[in-house]
């Protein structure tokens, strides 16, 4: 799956988590979204794991800088 494909699949996950509409782009970071605090972040990560049927390693998500990085991390975990 390409980064763009992953990001397209992330959009509905974000829609389920956030109250207000968030446009998912590679540049997006938590700072850009008012609702995206450390608590909602927990829910977001858990939801992404469920949606893609993957498991992040401990600390992996923390190391990503933006949604683009996160999408790359997800793509790496998906079966080829």
């Amino acid at each position: 799956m390409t980064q763009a494909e992953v990001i397209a699949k992330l959009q509905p996950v974000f829609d389920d988590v956030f109250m207000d509409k968030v446009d998912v782009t590679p540049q997006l970071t938590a700072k850009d979204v008012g609702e995206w605090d450390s608590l909602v972040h927990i829910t977001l990560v858990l939801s992404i794991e469920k949606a893609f049927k993957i498991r992040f390693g401990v600390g992996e998500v923390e190391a990503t800088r933006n949604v683009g990085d996160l999408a790359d991390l997800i793509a790496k975990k998906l079966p080829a």
Partner: protein
Amino acid sequence: MNAVSIDDPKSLLADADPRFWDVLRARTRDAEAFEDLLPLSTLRRKALKRGLAFPTGAAPVRLKLAIVGGCSLFPLHELIEHFLLNAPGSGFHAQVFQGDYDNYVSEILEADSGLYEFAPEMVLIVPSFKRCRYQGRMTDPIETQREQGVQTATQLLDLCRTVHERSKAEVLLVNFPLPPYHDPGPFRGRTLASDWNFRKLVNMELGLRAPSYVHTCDLEFLSARRGTLASTDEKAWFESKQPCSVDLLVDLAREVAHIVTGLRQGPKKVAVLDLDNTVWGGVIGDDGIDGIDIGDTSPRAEAFKAFQQYLRTLPERGILLAVCSKNDEDKALEPFEKHPDMALRREDFVSFKANWMPKSDNIRAIAQELNLGLDSFVFIDDNPAEIEIVKQFAPEVTGVLLGPDPSRYAREIMDARLFEPRAITVEDAERAELYKQEAQRQQLEANFTDMDSYLSSLNMKCVISEFRTVDAPRIAQLIGRSNQFNVTTHRRTEAEVRQVIEDPAYCAYTMRLEDRFGDYGLIAIVIGRVEGRTEGNVFDVDTWLMSCRVLKRQVEEETVNEMVRLAKARGCTRIHGVYLPTKKNGMVRDLYPRMGFAVALEQPDRREFELDPMLYTPVDTKINVIQRAYQPL
């Protein structure tokens, strides 16, 4: 489990349609996994934020819930709020206090903490699983290990007692999930020091020692049911201090809402059963008594018999059985009377309706016969059309649609969680017997032409007693579930009943009744409070309720006779009664005036009454009062 599509509630929300809440409730009931629940929870938050109205008459009840614990309480608290709002009935709108991470011990022990400032009605404690470990060696003497387990449990229960005594709140205590790890292998069973056995020990001690105000959220059971591996998520602990996997979090939140609902709503009392393809396989009208599946002749017949055997255990919990079937009555009765392999017999049912009228009408008729509210009825059928008709025309009744496989019927009923015992009392077990006697009495009543001679013929005996500690569970149970003959509907927990017993300002009594057909047990309760006023003491009737089983037996008259006697003994110059109307207690609207009280205040939401005890002449009844309250035996 298929992913729950949320298109439906989404568009309803977009249209600001109040039906949104019903759809949300149905989706929530069916959702099992976190990814199914989360979108629903987000929709709920959006709807609340936008102020979407609730359907008329179904606004959720407000509830102040505090959650404290040894883990992160997010997103647990959000899931709990979601399940509470979507609980059966009108649900609960929870105002939640969230304790700080792993700060529950000091929050409970410090009397000036935010927890007490919040004044919760219920407190949920999620203790730290990490602190439930044996400190010592696997090879220590078993007794040493057991002592530590007991100590771990009693320390937790001490916390529960402290929080209950300080806040008067009911306490929901989460116990410990079982670990999924192989280590230490088969040796885990030979010691109490293994996490596996130690947690089981502590959980068992917690359960067996818990006082009535502690309600266990059994995470041991829930983790076993879901699977211990699927319940564990180590990374979620290290990254965000989650106590368990998100799926188990869903189970826990649902359980909390289930317990809260059980504490606040009346229990189910009657199971109404269809017959064809429900209690036996096949259609009696077509297949005949030799053609139906029941007994030991085939796997299918065995499954139906096992289901009947399960149903027969319900009356032991105080659940009444009734039949509602589309059949000719004589054909429907035949298997109960003649088939040798039926586990259920005609006498197991308090009512038997086999006819061709709509089932909703029949269920209403049964409710009237038994003098019970429709909302205490559960209707069980294999036919979705019948379930739907009852839902439309008797919406208060809870329907259970059986699936296609009779081997799962019992499980389906058990997992619908409608007949779970709270505190089982002796009266529960005897209730089915009582209702049968009631049917005989009605028969007798029909034979008498005048009420007086009928009442005399009953040989009624009444024992009146001040509140006694031994009766506290039954008193709390009656206070919790009497809706119709109940002038104020003030609810009290068992702990609060005990406070009434200890406080000398209260003058509270119970009445027991028996007659020649049987013993009704404890059937009426009065809680009075004697208050000194300048013009003399006043006997304030806080609670007056009675089981509807004994209506029209002159118990009301004897209740007032006793009330007046006690008021005089306490030097009262006035008895003051209140009627607070609810949807269900219309039958006691005029109770006080009927008993000779004068109307003192008349408002739509409140009526007040007064009686001067000196001007009251005791009513002569057909009841022989063999003992009175606050008197030596």
